[in-house]
């Protein structure tokens, strides 16, 4: 028994989610597969977006999956790290922008 909450082997079992609720599981995977097809954005562009989002939401499964996928689709290490910095900047900025709320509150209550 693996005592870790996250086990890399579990990623391979993702499709088994449908075993407990087939209708919703199937709908999700149909949607998921459709999302990642070449369309107005290419599958390659979607892959680097997914990599950045994976870091923003800190999902180890997604990071594994989209690090491989983005590299396979030809993104370089430098480009991939820049995508992670974009995620990081947005996350950092999201905290920092709340500083305005703090400033507003202080201005409201301070003499």
């Amino acid at each position, binding site marked *: 028994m693996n005592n870790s909450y996250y086990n890399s082997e579990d990623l391979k079992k993702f499709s088994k989610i449908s075993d407990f609720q087939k209708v919703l599981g199937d709908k999700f995977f149909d949607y998921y597969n459709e999302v990642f097809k*070449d369309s107005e954005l*290419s*599958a*390659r562009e979607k892959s680097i977006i997914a990599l950045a989002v994976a870091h923003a939401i800190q999902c180890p499964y997604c990071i594994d999956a989209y690090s*491989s996928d983005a*590299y*396979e*689709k*030809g993104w*370089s290490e430098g480009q991939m790290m820049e995508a992670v910095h974009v995620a990081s900047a947005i996350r950092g900025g999201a905290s920092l922008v709340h500083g305005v709320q703090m400033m507003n509150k202080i201005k409201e209550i301070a003499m």
Partner: protein
Amino acid sequence: MIRSLKSQQNKLSIASEQLEILEHSLRNNNILIPFQQKLDECGLYPLKPSSINTFQINIGKMCNQVCKHCHVDAGPDRKEIMSKEIMILCLKVLEQNPVLETVDLTGGAPEMNPNFRWFVQEIKKLNRHILVRCNLTIILANSKYADLPIFYKENKIEIVSSLPFYTKDRTDRQRGQGVFQDSIQALQMLNEVGYGQTGADLILNLVYNPAGAFLPSSQKILEKEYKQELLEHYGISFNSLFTITNLPISRFLDYLLQTGNYENYLEKLITAYNPTAASNVMCRNTISVGWDGYLYDCDFNQMLELKVAIPQKHISLFSLSQLTNRSIIIGQHCYGCTAGAGSSCGGTLI
């Protein structure tokens, strides 16, 4: 520079050791389903030839490069090259078997065989389509090779050249320091004599193969990116891009084992098994000839020393009827040709 496995006396330079690893891992892992079982499930076992039309001749393991993924374990230290006597036997077979319409010359660097140019010209006299797997850097390796683009042009050779990626970093990591720059220069030289231009009859195709333990992505999309990048940055044109999957043998097997990627990679290949690709595998229309004249189902079986399963295994005893009716020898390495959109010396299979 890295050396061949053979010169390092690495046990993976021995075909039986490689086969043992491929079979041994099978016994320890339920996911690694035997390839035979997969073929059986889609009615393809025993695997039989469809129509044999390609004669792939490996004229030697000598090469000016030592690529990390090379299934031939080629390099400057390899001395196994085809003699003129074996070449004469190949020409006799071609003369007697007009169904062998395409002759695919490979190596090592085939151009390093001292009889290469003579052999090409003799094949040309037999009116066959000739394809040379040129590693590009050979053109710049020595002044005696500098006129190769003209020689190719005069003999209307189709050129197939590896360029693992359109960036220096990934190419050099796989093929050696400086290979990207030399490859770009060689491609420009080929373009200059008329190769790779749309509508022209001098065909220049490039080969992508992954620089690591992963599968190729879409051939169509990669081709578009290659064309755009190479034209924009280097003014280079080419005809088609073939994506090829690395098979887990020889130096690539060594890489997989050294980096702990072996089982995951095999699992990836097996998970991506595609029956449509399996029905189109290149061993169904190709006969592979080794430097010493022995016959194989493909270049990979050749490197694993799995000779054709017929009594007459040598070019001197060539029998098209025996070869047409034979069963093709398969193994776990064959998953490399049937994963995803499939893989062959001519790119994807579907």
